[in-house]
């Protein structure tokens, strides 16, 4: 049995408890999240509905004109299955207005802009509803840096950031995410026909097995090679984790005083809660 297999009932309980405790302790009752039609946000949506009651969860679908129509259909399916509040806020006018000034922008710039546009909408709705924005990045994406800094990586709380994609699939079955959402190929839906695994050049299952050994079990290269991983694959993934580390940290502050934020001024975020 792969060690990536999780006790889904136990994890469900821990994550529902996490959402309740961390949201209620700051005096909030509600949560806001972007629902893309993909499995990660679907899972978070179901967990939040269970934790807070579906009436307290606002899921927003934010398609661009090139988004696959199936994505919005799947987002609706998840909203119906979990019973949460659902709305659609298109981002085409804002994104196009910007790129009219930069018509030569490549896919990466366009994708990042879309992710950041969605972030501003979520945080605006956070103020509107008095709810916390839930993150939907999984551990695989976070480690590989496969996300947009201050875009989809931005949130107040992330219940699934310590679960690999392989584990997201398992937990999604447990909490009742609709089958079509679980079974479809993962895609950031940034352009037509995009799939994560094609863009990344490996499958989530392959990279999760490697990341689990590398990160969680702290296996060294000798051990990883002995386990059957190719040295080029190991090096390439290690490089991705290393080079994307800046995305997982707060901005670097130049130290000049005796007590600098986050270096020698250290408090938990739940300070006083």
């Amino acid at each position, binding site marked *: 049995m792969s060690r990536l297999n999780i*006790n889904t009932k*136990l*994890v469900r*309980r821990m994550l529902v408890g*996490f959402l309740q405790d961390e949201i209620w302790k700051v005096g909030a009752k509600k949560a806001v999240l972007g629902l893309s039609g993909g499995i990660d946000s679907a899972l978070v949506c179901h967990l939040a509905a269970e934790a807070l009651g579906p009436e307290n969860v606002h899921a927003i679908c934010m398609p661009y004109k090139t988004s696959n129509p199936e994505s919005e259909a799947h987002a609706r399916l998840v909203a119906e299955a979990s019973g949460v509040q659902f709305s659609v806020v298109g981002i085409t006018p804002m994104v196009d207005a910007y790129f009219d000034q930069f018509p030569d922008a490549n896919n990466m710039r366009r994708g990042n802009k879309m992710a950041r546009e969605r972030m501003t909408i979520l945080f605006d709705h956070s103020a509107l509803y008095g709810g916390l924005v839930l993150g939907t990045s999984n551990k695989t994406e976070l480690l590989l840096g496969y996300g947009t800094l201050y875009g989809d990586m931005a949130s107040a709380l992330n219940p699934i950031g310590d679960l690999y994609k392989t584990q997201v699939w398992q937990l999604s079955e447990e909490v009742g995410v609709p089958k079509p959402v679980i079974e479809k190929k993962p895609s950031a839906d940034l352009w037509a026909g995009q799939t994560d695994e094609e863009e990344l050049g490996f499958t989530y299952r392959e990279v999760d097995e490697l990341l689990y050994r590398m990160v969680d079990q702290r296996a060294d290269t000798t051990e990883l090679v002995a386990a059957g991983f190719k040295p080029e694959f190991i090096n390439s993934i290690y490089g991705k984790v290393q080079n994307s580390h800046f995305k997982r940290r707060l901005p670097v502050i130049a130290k000049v005083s005796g007590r600098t934020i986050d270096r020698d001024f*250290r*408090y*938990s975020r*739940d300070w006083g*809660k």
Partner: protein
Amino acid sequence: MDFSVALLQIKPKLGRVADNLALIQEQVEQAIAQKADLAVLPELALTGYFLKDLVPEVALTLDSSEIAALKELSKRISIAVGFVEVTADFQFYNSAAWFEDGELKHLHRKVYLPTYGLFDEQRYLGRGDRFRAFDTKFGRIGLLVCEDMWHLSAPYLLAMDGATTLVCLSSSPGRGVDDQTLGTATAWRNLTTSTARFLTCRVIYVNRVGYEDGVGFWGGSHVVAPSGEIVAAAPEFDPATLLVSLTDAELRRERISSPLVRDENLCITLRELSRIDQERSC
């Protein structure tokens, strides 16, 4: 003597001493109403766990009003509770206090401060320097704070010092989800039951619940008989009060059938430890 213990599995607020004291007082009052003789609270029950730079802000002197309030309450029930202690020379400790009959009967400063993985205690706290058993209404007790229990020598010393009941105050973060039960819970239950069995002592283990910065404390407080059997356990992750009756008869029975403590040879242990110490020092 036979007695009834209330394991108060609470959810402290991080850095809110007044709120936590009120919660503790309320819980202890309920334990008194339920006719408990002893109330046991978790490690750092008055402050919360991931304190970091809050340590000096939440620390209490032994003559503080909070400690006085707990002393006063102990006229009606014995209380074991964890807090941050500050001494007159401004050393800070992760301490556990035993209040009985309106007095501070014993103070244990956590010796083994975990500083690895998600733990960083030694950065902020001073290290205790002793393990001493002490006499109470309920026989001789050994107090431990969380990580102390993971060092074989700590419960061993307390048992050699005559403790028949080991009381462990804990703030244990839950982690390890690839098995039938939570990894930390399994590890702790293996530890408390094995320790009870090796030393034919009762073990009272009280862990907190609640989340701090995404870390969930798993609760699961429990009482282990001197036989190594878990006699009662609180639920995991939810606040709870567990009331358990303990009898001298079970302790007597176990000490007759497994006279391990009687047969333990302190002379050999001391001689070999001295030798090891000498060899290491060279």
